[in-house]
């Protein structure tokens, strides 16, 4: 009986802790959400109405008609999609080469990639800007995609190589004996085996792309992605925060991310942990 009571008490404590943790995370998110659907007159009240009295989509309408959020969503999707495709192709090839071949030069090249990941973006930003400008790549999709891809390369190669080292080489050797060419071998034997790692890495990279702020801040003015859009919302003066639009735009960015995280919780956890253990 005592044992049973203890167990129950433990379960209650666990739940209590979990709920407190969840509330700390969810309250700010909930506050952003209710702010986005309140009419302007009820937005600036003190104390805050935690359950909105009236409901309106006015902020969202303003975002679409006046601020022009749709093109921003479009350019975010273009940059993200192309970056993911290019990163995946390049990194699968590179991870394969790094894992399946060995030479001094190759390990040096690998070391270079790991080292380059230590260089803070802010250290390289200004020369990189001037350099890309001379190539006419500033404020263009190819330029943005190049930089986004570059930012994802070290992590992606790390994860893919790590996973590849767990796939026995025998399978590939068998394919070679059966007369498969080099490219065929990678395409039809290794690639299918790499699928779980590729999908995990793509899910995490997708979030990284959506969150990217540093690159578009420096390297594009006309092409606006969502993270830049939210930081340049029109405001009356430099001290004012356009909270109605800001909260609505926050929701437009957050809701897909939250749904995405709910669907892929296990993959994301797996990917983060795989990167962390190796690191």
């Amino acid at each position, binding site marked *: 009986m005592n044992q049973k009571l203890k167990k129950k008490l433990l*379960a209650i404590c*666990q*739940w209590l802790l*979990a709920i407190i*943790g*969840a509330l700390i*995370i*969810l*309250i*700010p998110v909930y*506050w952003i959400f209710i702010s986005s659907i309140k009419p302007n007159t009820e937005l600036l*009240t003190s104390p*805050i109405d935690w359950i909105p009295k009236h409901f309106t989509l006015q902020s969202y309408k303003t975002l679409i008609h006046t601020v022009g959020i749709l093109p921003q969503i479009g350019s975010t999707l273009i940059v993200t999609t192309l970056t993911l495709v290019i990163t995946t192709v*390049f990194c699968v090839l*590179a991870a394969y*080469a790094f894992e*399946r*071949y060995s*030479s001094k030069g*190759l390990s040096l*090249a690998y070391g*270079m990639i790991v080292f*380059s990941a*230590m*260089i*803070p*973006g*802010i*250290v*390289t*930003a*200004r*020369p990189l800007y001037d*350099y890309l400008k001379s190539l006419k790549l500033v404020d263009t999709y190819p330029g943005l995609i*190049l*930089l986004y*891809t*570059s930012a994802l*390369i070290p992590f992606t190669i790390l994860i893919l190589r790590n996973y590849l080292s767990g796939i026995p080489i025998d399978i590939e*050797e068998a394919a070679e004996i059966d007369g498969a060419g080099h490219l065929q071998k990678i395409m039809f034997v290794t690639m299918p085996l790499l699928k779980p790692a590729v999908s995990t890495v793509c899910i995490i990279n997708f979030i990284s792309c*959506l*969150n990217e*702020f*540093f690159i578009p801040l*420096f390297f594009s003015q006309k092409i606006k992605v*969502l*993270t830049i859009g*939210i930081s340049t919302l029109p405001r009356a003066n430099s001290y004012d925060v356009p*909270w109605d639009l800001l909260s609505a735009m*926050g929701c437009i960015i*957050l809701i897909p*991310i*939250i749904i995405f995280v*709910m669907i892929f*919780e296990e993959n*994301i*956890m797996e990917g*983060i942990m795989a990167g*962390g*253990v190796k690191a």
Partner: protein
Amino acid sequence: MKEGTKKRMWIPWLMILPVIVIRCLTTLYPVVMTFINSFRDLNIINGGTGTFIGLKNYARLLQDDKIASSMQFTIIFTVVSMIFHIILGVALAMMLNMKFKGKKFLRTIVLIPWAMPTIVAGRAARWGFNGTYGFVNDLISRFVAGFHFDWLVQVDTARIAVIIVDLWKDVPFFAILVLASLQYISDDIYEAAKIDGAGALRTFWSITIPNIAKTVMLISIFFTMWRITNFELVYAMTSGGPYDGTSVLSYRILIEAFNNLNLGYASAIAIVLFLLMLLLSGLNLFAVKKISD
């Protein structure tokens, strides 16, 4: 596979060519340029033309009060934030590792701050910590009647607010990484400890802590580096204010390079920051070696 690798060594090189070219162009080349620029007069507004001026940019750096205060806040921010990251991160990781029905629910929620763009969190926090309309004061005043405080107007509390938001956003990520090493500890050890009559606290100190110490240390070094170089949160939340009180070193570089257009000087600060990073990654390598021996 082993036979004939010599002959076909061009194949792997061809395969890594794209990533090598991209990384060289976007990181190594600009770093070298930043290094060179740090010795030049590139104060564009005052008509700097790029003549080499030796260590003048670095000399100025030592006398600049703004750099000193940026350095000070960067250190405070990093140290305080990391101490809480470790304490709260380990606690949260242990919660995530508990066996109970709400596990999946908690794990999903914990990913939200990580997946949220810093700029969104920072902009929302700017409003959330607002004295009159922010939700932080609203919640506190429900427990402490009549509570009112202008967080972002005074230097000290603005710093505290920035650190709180940083913790809110990144402790969950830290915890997930710690969770990975918690899961490596087998249940048998805990069972054995239980049979030997060890209490919960004893088990924590003698089994959990030693087993995760290595991972926690390595992650901490990475998180420290990230804290030293990141300016996004400060950019979004306080714009370095009030009175430059929250302008971290990397934010100062941004202002010098893109607002004041003093490229030589910005490069010198950037190089100092980079050396700091190299020092830390050296420490990291050293730690890895020491631990695996």
